[in-house]
């Protein structure tokens, strides 16, 4: 956006009088007041009664009923992806926690239960015993996503998550996999799903 240059003629009778400009300013705000006020007073209740979402795009999004759908590359809550056999893709390489500038990921590895099925594939041998993201420390930079060699951790579009305690704000493997189930088709907000992780 280019800067718009406005020339102000400081010395003019109109500016000296001041009240003229004051009046113009007042009229401008009054115009907006009338427009939105009328909408909020008449149209919005009617729409709400009819179960519709407000049509006035200039006004605030009516959050709990109406949710903003983030753009494609939005970085929200994390998820831990699974493969076709419903096993976690993560191999506990700790690349994400190494890349993490906020140091919010902590991982403990172990031998995976399905390691014996793949004697020649070391990549299937390891999986995380513990995978925890401290959401309170996370800065949603997406470095973990970049660092992950097996596309296991990903940032989703979910932005409305909260917790009533610090313990609940630590997302462990189960929670992150629930997030995966909710968001794998990318229609979390379109389908009006909600995340209930207070367990």
């Amino acid at each position, binding site marked *: 956006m280019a800067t718009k240059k406005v020339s102000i003629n400081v010395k003019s009778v109109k500016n000296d009088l001041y009240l003229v400009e*004051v009046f113009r*300013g*007042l009229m*401008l*705000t*009054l115009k*907006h*007041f009338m*427009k*939105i*006020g009328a909408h*909020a007073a008449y149209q*919005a*209740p009617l729409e709400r009664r009819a179960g519709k979402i407000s049509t006035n795009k*200039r*006004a*605030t999004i*009516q959050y709990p009923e109406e949710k903003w759908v983030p753009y494609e590359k939005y970085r929200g809550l994390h998820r831990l992806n699974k493969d076709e056999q419903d096993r976690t893709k993560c191999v506990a390489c700790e690349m994400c926690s190494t890349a993490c500038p906020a140091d919010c990921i902590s991982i403990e590895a172990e031998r995976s239960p399905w390691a014996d099925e793949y004697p020649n594939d070391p990549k299937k041998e390891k999986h995380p015993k513990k995978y925890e993201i401290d959401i309170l420390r996370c800065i949603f930079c997406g470095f973990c996503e970049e660092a992950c060699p097996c596309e296991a951790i990903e940032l989703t579009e979910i932005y409305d998550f909260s917790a009533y305690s610090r313990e609940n704000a630590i997302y462990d493997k189960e929670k992150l996999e629930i997030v995966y189930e909710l968001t794998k088709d990318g229609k979390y907000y379109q389908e009006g799903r909600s995340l209930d992780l207070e367990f």
Partner: protein
Amino acid sequence: MDIATQNLIFSVLKVALVIKVLLLGVTMVILAERRFSAFMQDRLGPNRTFYGGLGQSFADGIKLILKEDVIPTHVDKLTYMIAPIVMMTPALMTGAVIPFGPTIPIAGISLPFIGENLTPLVLQVADINVGLLYFVAIASIGVYGIVMGGWAQNNKYSLLGALRASAQMVSYELPMGLALVTVVLMSGSLSMNEIVAHQQETFWYVLNFPAFMIFLITIFAETNRLPFDLAECEQELVAGYHTEYSSMKFGMFLLAEYGNIITSSALVVTLFFGGWDIPFVDESALGLFGVILSMSVFGLKTSIFIFIFIWVRWSLPRFRYDQLMNVSWKGILPLSILTVVGTAVIMVLLKNFYH
């Protein structure tokens, strides 16, 4: 029952009514301010709590009361504690001299519990003969709350806010006084009731437009509202004189601010817009209905001015401090002196013309 007791009962009732209306009004004005400002900025404002946000102010009030009352260690305890009270009291006291309706002719009518009425009921808490001066006096002490609060917090921003507030109030009291002098010149009385009556008989004093404008501007300054809210400007002084107040003490500052707005609006209406007067209508002929109508009209007029207060706040930027002083001493003060002189001349001419 004798007159004194009856007067006492009626006075108590009227005081209760005025305070009730003021406090309830404050919550409504706060809500109005928030919603209207939202509309002006293409937002919606608080619209969740109880029927389109009507309960928002009450919810906020409950929150403020329940919040922990933090008293910082470095404050001057005594002044810190009484400052909000000193701030709030004048805001409520001003309401005492504003007539909010015509006199109800109930003398001789028997009422339950009270018995036969001995005097007509004046819809004004105290009909004192120096009502206008009373307003000036009370309005001028409102600054103590700000000054004490600002000084007590032992915080340089608060102190600066307090200093600004006091200088501003002293500066703007002069033109306000002079604007009131024009009213006195026109009405020939200091009593609010008589001012209203005089307007009813002759004309609304808003016809003396310069005096009205001066009074309106100075009243903005007196209530510390934008564009004159230098005492509490957030960007420079981190909320100025109430920086370190929390809980209901902060709530009292808030109450005082909005209480001032209501009483000031009512005063503007009383002094320049005929108070409860409905133009071209003879209220006394309508009986009790006329009384109710007049009171409603008074409320309506006051509401319009409250809206103007809000409207101006969300439209205009804040003055710089030197601009503020310039406007007062170099602009409004000479203008108000001119207005007084002009009004006096016109009044004399009119008097000669009539006689």
